[in-house]
Each structure stands twice: as structure tokens, then as C-alpha cells.
């Protein structure tokens, strides 16, 4: 956990920095509101309706797919990090190299199966038109 302490410290400073700037803005920036000035900008004339109406988000399907694919990506990260070990039948040497003649296709095959599943999914949603949200 120790390694994280400096980051938390930085985070503290950074938050303080943001608060400071917003604080300064309260001190230096003076507000002189008028009814027109404080209306929301909509090309210089009174707004038609409200920005908080129900609103159509066309890409929600892609967003859902994104979550699924993103999780699958996360699985690949630990696999990637240990790939050298996974592709070696015996433990790696200290230099991180596999002793000669000990290639294993376990890691590769494992991931190819996983990736094939992922690709089939991608092709399926692609062909289904789920990525065509317009």
C-alpha cells in the first residue's frame, strides 16, 4: 500500500489546487447579473423549451456493448502481463527469458479461444447493425 501514499498526497494537493482556483474565481470575478445575461445561451434569443427535457440518446446500444467489451478487455490485461510465463512450459529464467526448447502454446491457445469468442460477438453485433445507430 505504501506506494499509493504519494499518489494520495498528490491527489490532496490537486484537489486543493482546484478548490483554490474556484475560490479565487469567487473573489476576483464579480457577478453583475441581469435577467438577459443570466439566461442560458441559445444563439442569442430566448430558449425554446428547456434543456432538461427527455432526450433521445441514439448510441445507448453501443454504450451497452461497450461495457461488455470493456470488461473483456480487462481480462486481457493480466493475461498480457503473464504472457511470457504462459507461453513457457517451465518457469522463466531470472532474466525473463524462457529456457530454449520449452515453448508452450497454452497462453496463445487460451487467448485465441477467448478472442475468437470476442470476435464472434463483435461480428455478430456488427452484422446485426447494433453499431449503426443512425
Amino acid at each position, binding site marked *: 500500500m505504501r*506506494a499509493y501514499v504519494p499518489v494520495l498526497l498528490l491527489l490532496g494537493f490537486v484537489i486543493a489546487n482546484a478548490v483554490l482556483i474556484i475560490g479565487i*474565481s469567487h473573489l476576483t*470575478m464579480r457577478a453583475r447579473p441581469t435577467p438577459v445575461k443570466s439566461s442560458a445561451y*441559445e444563439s442569442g434569443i430566448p*430558449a425554446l423549451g428547456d*434543456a432538461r427535457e427527455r432526450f433521445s440518446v441514439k448510441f445507448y446500444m453501443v454504450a451497452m456493448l461497450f461495457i461488455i467489451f*470493456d470488461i473483456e478487455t480487462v481480462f486481457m490485461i493480466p493475461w498480457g502481463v503473464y504472457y511470457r510465463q504462459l507461453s513457457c512450459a517451465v518457469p522463466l529464467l531470472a532474466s525473463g527469458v524462457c529456457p530454449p526448447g520449452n515453448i508452450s502454446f497454452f497462453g*496463445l491457445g487460451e487467448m485465441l479461444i477467448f478472442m475468437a469468442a470476442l470476435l464472434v460477438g463483435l461480428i455478430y453485433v456488427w452484422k446485426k447493425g447494433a453499431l449503426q445507430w443512425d
Partner: protein
Amino acid sequence: MTGGDIIEAVVKSLIIIVALLTAFAYMTLYERRILGRMQLRSGPNRVGPAGLLQPVADGVKLAFKQAITPRGVDKPLYLLAPAISVVTALSAFAVIPVGPTYNIFGRAIPFHLADFNVGLLFVLAMGSLGAYGIVLAGYASNNKYSLLGGLRAAAQLISYELALGLSLVGILMISGSLSLTAIVEGQARGLWYILVQPLAFVIYLISAIAETNRAPFDLVEAEQELVGGYHTEYTGLRFALFFMAEYINMVTVSALAATLFLGGWHGPFDLLSGPWWLLAKIILILTLYVVLRATLPRLRYDQLMRLGWHWLLPLALLNVVLTAIGITLLQ
């Protein structure tokens, strides 16, 4: 953790913040000067010698602008949004190593704030969190253009994020570590990863430009379409925070690109010491940013989505497979 460690961390944190804020200020000037050169004009050159004080003048101007808070904004979110943007932007730099370990005042000081085993994930996470600032700003502003900008930020995130993450898997496989320091050391021993992962570099760079909302992917502000997008209703320093976040993000993703692909602080010759090498590489990538901005039209957001899902994602997967096969055969 000793007192010395704490002091070291405090000093480093402050250096990071000050350095990034300075980088932000001078990046704006650098960008405007380069744009000027490319566009047959000189850019700001009146404030101070060669315009070097222009960022100061801009800062002072922004600080004394009128504070306009439109009616109907969601006040807490409205103020929180720029803070989120700038906090995530500044934090992401924490794990990037700017140099090897140096001996200063008889103390071995590694030139990075923190080096933990998921350093790379931390940078990516902070980058993605930054999108919250934009989405919230769009929602809180009670402005339709801002809302559209915020929605575009969400659309953009789901377009490039997969490819961004996947493009880095190849590097992890070669280096066997998520620690950025280990990745740089791996490159210092062997080849820079741009030579073994050129496809990943291109995918990363495209995705990173999309992540920082810069041209040709500056959809969320797109002044010709959405006037200012998510920051339409922000004035003065509050606007400056978004601006700050954008430029610091550029510096961060450039630093990350340099670290992951261009050998980080490792240089081919001993001409410069580590941090200067890194700086030179960052400036190189930032220049690319500016040149792209001056050259390219903007993509539409459905086109960006198509680019991300139909091109970058399959290519990134291909890259992973090729890397896996390559490593297995070379073992």
C-alpha cells in the same frame, strides 16, 4: 514511511503540479505560435519578449472576467465539473517516470512520484474519469448545446476507449509488467517499443487524441456546431479549469506515449539527461497535435464511433494476436 519519504513526496507533488501548470500555460502559447506560423500570421507576440508573457496576461484576464452563472444551472455540479476535469488531469501524471534514479543530497531519488504495479491502469483510469467532468458540465449547464456536447463526450468515450486499452496489451506482453518504470527500463535494455509495436503506436495515438478531445476529434466543443459545447456556459477561471484540463491531458498522453513507445527518459545518446529526453519527446508529440489541428477537418461523432469500432478495435485485437504469436515463436 519515514519523514524523509513524506517530504520527498510533498516536494515531488508540488513539482508535478507546478510543472504541469507551467506546461499548460506555455503549451497554449506554443500552440498559438505554431498555428500562427502554419496560417500565415505570427500568433501572439506582443506581451513580453516574443509573447512569452501572453499566458500570464490571459490568466489575469480570465481571473477578472465577470462571473456569469446562468439561471437554472445545477450549481453544485456546475462547480464540481471543472474541478473533476482538472483533478483527474493533474493526477494522471503521478506514475509517469520522468527520469532514472538520481542521487541528490546524498539520497537516492527516483524520478517519479509513485511506481506501483498497476501504474499504466492508473493513467488510463484517470483519463477516462476526466470524461465525467465534461458530461457533468454538459448536464449541469441547463443549455442544450452543452447537453449535446456532454452526450458527445460519452459517445466519444465509448468509441476510443476499447482500442486505447487494447493497443497497450501488446506492450504489457513484451514488458511483462504494468509498471511504467519497468516498461521504460525494458526499452532501455532493448528496442524502443515503437519499433516492435508500430501498429499499437498508431492506434494509441489516434485514441489518445480522441481521449483529449483534440482536433480532429474535438467534437465535444466543436465551436462551429455546438458553439462551445460543454463549456458554453462557463466564464473566467471556471472556463480556464476546463482549458487547463485539456492541455494537461495532452501533456499526459504525450508523456505516456513517449514512455510506452519512445523509450521514455531513455535516449540513444548521452547528450541529454533523462528528464530532458522525455521533455523533447513530449514536445515532439505535442507538435504533432498542433499540426493535426491546423490541418484536418473534424470528424462527425458517428464517424468517430465507426472508426473506433470498425477499424481501431479489430486492428488492436489483431495486434494482440500478432504480438502473442511473435513472442511465442521467438521464445
